[in-house]
């Protein structure tokens, strides 16, 4: 019996585990080793350089631009997808909104069903001063647009990309929060209503504390996503103009696959690994928090 069970266990576990080890864990280790060498995919030369790639990276302005851009992405995403989404969700669950809740919910959600690539291509055109929608609209409300080229100016480009991403994902988070609010026991609200608590008070005293775990988990997901962001930038600006919209992931791609400095790119990849790993530890902690 015992022995037979052991065989079953191996049979059930092995395929998934082998795949995870070979394609998830081993590459991380290889990546670290790779980052200690100077090498390229196109050239046969490969030389050990120790931590040079890392010291080079910390003195590389573009690396810090990428960090800054990821940070902008993180902050704006948290404000919109946690803050704004939560308020929208709470309002949708109010009595007076119930009738139209479904319509609003569905409309807000649709962009998140589209590929980031599609959204990128569409917004690239919408933002364009020659064939887009944004500039004519601004002109119509009386703003001088002769100097506005949202994706073309290095000062506005990263914000334009971030806003596009919020357009896509606010509705997604709204649905998550609506479902979470619906799971809050009704009698908590009833008791509060008897005590004469108003809408705002109910939100602050019941909804927010009850959603604490959901908010934490969602915030970590948003954070991790913002650290990884690639598609949105790659499709719209490829990191440009100049290097102004480069993020860690797009920079890693450019350095590795365009400039063929694979060792240096591996070092950038390792930084992404470290950041997401630390965030992941928090995520794990919040899961355990939930299981208790």
């Amino acid at each position, binding site marked *: 019996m015992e022995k037979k069970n052991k065989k079953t*266990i191996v049979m*059930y576990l092995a395929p998934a585990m082998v795949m995870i080890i070979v394609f998830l864990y081993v590459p991380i280790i290889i990546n670290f080793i790779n980052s200690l060498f100077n090498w390229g995919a196109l050239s046969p030369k490969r030389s050990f350089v120790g931590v040079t790639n890392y010291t080079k990276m910390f003195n590389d302005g573009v690396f810090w631009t990428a960090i800054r851009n990821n940070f902008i992405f993180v902050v704006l995403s948290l404000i919109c997808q946690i803050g704004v989404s939560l308020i*929208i969700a709470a309002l949708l669950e109010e009595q007076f909104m119930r009738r139209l809740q479904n319509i609003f919910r569905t409309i807000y959600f649709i962009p998140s069903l589209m590929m980031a690539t599609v959204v990128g291509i569409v917004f690239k055109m919408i933002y364009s001063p020659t064939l887009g929608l944004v500039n004519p609209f601004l002109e119509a409300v009386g703003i001088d647009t002769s100097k506005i080229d949202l994706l073309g100016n290095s000062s506005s480009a990263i914000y334009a990309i971030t806003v596009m991403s919020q357009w896509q994902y606010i509705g997604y988070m709204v649905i998550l929060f609506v479902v979470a609010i619906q799971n809050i026991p009704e009698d908590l609200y009833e008791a509060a209503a008897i005590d004469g608590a108003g809408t705002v008070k109910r939100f602050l005293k019941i909804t927010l504390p009850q959603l604490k775990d959901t908010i934490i988990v969602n915030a970590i997901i948003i954070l991790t996503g913002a650290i990884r962001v690639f598609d949105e930038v790659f499709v719209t600006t490829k990191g440009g103009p100049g290097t102004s919209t480069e993020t860690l992931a797009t920079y890693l791609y450019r350095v590795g696959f365009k400039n063929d400095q694979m060792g240096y790119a591996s070092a950038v990849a390792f930084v992404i690994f470290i950041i997401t790993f630390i965030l992941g530890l928090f995520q794990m902690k919040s899961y355990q928090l939930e299981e208790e």
Partner: protein
Amino acid sequence: MKKARLKLLHGLIYFLFILFAILIILPLIWMVITGFKTNKELFLSPFALPRKWEWENYVNAWNSGIGMYLKNSLLVTVISTLLSTSLSCFAAYPLSRLHFKSKRFWVYLIMGGLMLAPQSSLISLYKMINWVHLLDTQLALEVVNAVFRIPFATFLIMTFYKGISYSLDESAYIDGARTGQIFCRIILPLSKPIIASCSIISFRAVWNELMFANVLLQSSSKKTVPLGLINMQGMTTTNWTEVIAGTVIASVPLIIAFLLMQKQFVRGLTAGSVKG
């Protein structure tokens, strides 16, 4: 008086919600309409309706590749989803319902996998795949996509299996059923909802995936939709309205699937995100 003020406030909130809805819909409507325009019309009057509704853009977009890209995407997505979901169903079983010594280690291995960003493995995976001469094959993309879905799927399914009552398999044990039979006859049939959720999450993720496809696939005939669209957009004489028509076609399948199966979608996505 107070009631009137409340009414006014509600009206204002409604107004803001409708405004936001318009903000969301406007680009979508613009997409569909632009898909019907000629390039010239797009440059002259971005807001106006087309003078003549040109189906041609949609037909051309389909013929110039979108049809093929959709087929490729569907193939890659279905295979990756099947692979990751089925392997996860199996792996989750011993991890949640059987007892053995090294269990803790494997559970940590799964949980650890949740934290790994695909970006940090991009270069090594590229190198590994190059080394086994599988660059520019859909097989490589399918496997890579599947692998990155496994930790989360296993985690979700594990949580679900744990919730199934143990008295069921105990009575089956007494009746002499073997572990494999219990899994197939009791656990799997009960797990349909979570399997559906996992499949939806995985489908959506693989369907949208760009980075690995971009690095692993080279020949045009193998490309998936996101990559194909970028290809169309990058051509020297970009026919913008045709590209837009392409993006509309690319967006339709998932939106229709959502409208038809809203309930399953919402359940799947919330299972996916409230818990990671």
